[in-house]
């Protein structure tokens, strides 16, 4: 019975309490800084680019559509009041100032800008992380928002990010149905271009290129690895229309850059060596008497 009581206490610990979160803004798609003009030409795909915001602002963000002309962007949340789960924001001169579902609920929100011109539908999509606790984006990513979609499977965890040399999975679907054997193009701010093809489940495994240029003097600020923009895009002709969808986000430089495994291992070995004298004295009386 006593052992059972222990089991019950352990299980209660695992399932009982709600998972609280803390703010983390290193994983946001971009640092709140304006994009230099020189960086705007790296792609012709439709984008949602971050604009300037006040430092410490956690419940709102400025997103500027680029490569498409839209009057509004739509923000989807995974939890919160029903009337706030899908909200349209007008696009002004600086872009659209979007907000988290409530001031206190953050985490990932899905942002879409959609333009219909003639027989073409152009969609820019992005995932924006608001630095407050919020629901897991699992359900947010499952929901169908528009015709042709690029869906991260999964998004980077809140303490993580897409990074150079890493492989990440993206689902390409049309009207909610996976598109097998479909090309997905990757472009990065540093000029890399590559194309990946979806598997039978409609999932493309994207390898992020190791293409970060050395940081210019004084370029880096804040903590965490340097980040740059990338965009994934795909097109599909269906129902007499041409669909072009893009998903843009940030990726970081490889965590091993600017780091030395050799130095790390060396200090580990020094620590081990420092502990060796502790092992010298053997308690002979205890050996073999158990």
């Amino acid at each position: 019975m006593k052992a059972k009581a222990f089991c019950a206490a352990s299980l209660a610990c695992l399932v009982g309490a709600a998972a609280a979160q803390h703010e983390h803004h290193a994983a946001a798609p971009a640092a709140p800084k304006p994009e230099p003009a020189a960086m705007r030409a790296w792609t012709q795909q439709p984008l949602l680019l971050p604009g300037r915001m006040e430092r410490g602002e956690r419940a709102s963000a400025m997103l500027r559509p680029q490569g498409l002309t839209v009057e509004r962007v739509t923000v989807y949340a995974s939890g919160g009041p029903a009337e706030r789960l899908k909200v349209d924001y007008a696009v002004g001169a600086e872009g659209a100032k979007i907000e988290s579902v409530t001031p206190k609920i953050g985490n990932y929100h899905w942002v879409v800008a959609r333009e219909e011109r003639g027989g073409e539908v152009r969609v820019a999509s992005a995932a924006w992380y608001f630095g407050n606790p919020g629901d897991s984006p699992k359900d947010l990513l499952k929901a169908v928002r528009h015709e042709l979609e690029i869906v991260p499977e999964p998004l980077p965890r809140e303490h993580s990010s897409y990074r150079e040399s890493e492989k990440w999975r993206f689902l390409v679907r049309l009207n909610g149905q996976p598109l097998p054997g479909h090309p997905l193009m990757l472009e990065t701010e540093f000029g890399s271009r590559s194309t990946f093809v979806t598997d039978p489940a409609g999932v493309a495994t994207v390898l992020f290129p190791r293409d970060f240029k050395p940081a210019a003097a004084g370029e880096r600020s804040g903590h965490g690895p340097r980040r740059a923009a990338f965009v994934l895009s795909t097109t599909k002709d269906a129902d007499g229309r041409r669909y072009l969808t893009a998903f843009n986000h940030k990726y970081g430089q490889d965590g091993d850059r600017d780091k030395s495994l050799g130095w790390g291992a060396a200090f580990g070995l020094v620590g081990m060596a420092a502990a060796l004298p502790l092992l010298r004295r053997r308690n002979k009386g205890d050996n073999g008497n158990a």
Partner: protein
Amino acid sequence: MLKLLCPTLSRFRMTVQIAMLFVTVYGSVFVGNYMADKISNALPALSCAYDQMNGGYCVLVPTQHIIHHRIGEAMVRAQQLTFQMVLPLLMTFVSFFAFFFVLGKMFCGWVCPLGTLQELIGKLGRRLGFGLRRFEKDDLGEVKRVRPVKWLLLLALVFVLPLATGLGVTPHSLGNPYCDICPSRVATTLLTGNTEQLALRLGDNVSFGLGAIANLLIGFMLVGAMAIRQPFCRICPLLAMNAVFQRLSPMRLAKKMHDNCGKCGICSEACPMDITEIAKEEGRKAYHEDCTLCGRCAEYCPQDGTIQIKWGPFALFSSRRDYYKSKVKGELPDGTVKPLKFVRNAARPTADPADA
């Protein structure tokens, strides 16, 4: 069935520890990838946020972040220190306490992945025949000299430096200094096959220095744990933080004084934290700030009902003479067990030809 699989409290605890090691290091497989999916981000155990596969975060992570990013920065902006600003910290502590209330300091002795690793290494050390080193007068020095370190680390690395960084007094790389020196960060990420946290950042002396300390600690721990029981636990700031709240959880160590108390000393010999007070004191004083509620003292106390692990009024485990007798047959109080065969052979003295 449970009794068959786990005939002793130690065996049951080790089973729980191994299960918790998987939950805290690889738990995302079960609970999900995102932070919002985690069991909690305020666990009273060193479950590292740098481990991309973990099932929950250690409470020290959000504590440093909130003090750095919210409280410190808000004070810099000369805003009023309102309830709204400290609310995230409060929520973190509420989440922490929701867990802590149930198991108390058992999080140290039963759940913490770093504690489990140290214990496994210690068991290996015993099997390899390394003699146990203790914090006592005639060996490594009195344990009392080590005890204040954990409080200093908690104060300086979890509270003061993150706040000073938020205020702009110290460099940004001192924003989460405890995580930077935490050996659990290195150990648990290595367990997932990731060497990134072992590598040291170049070009930033502060980051390099903090990372070097973490690696020295993990290196020392990996070898030292074969001779010293739970070497890092003794200076762990999370043990200090758990000690602050230990009287608020119904889970506790309860000790009654027996005529033999202070004479046999088997309980303190069994204690992996070398707590001598358990043998000499009773009541609140016996449930020491360093106690991890591992229960070894209760297992090795030969007196019926003298030492108990209790949750509220319920005794979950009580010391028993018959249990003690069967327990010492397999393992001595200090953890000594029968060494491996090749160790025994190596230790056996060669026969003197003159004896032949």
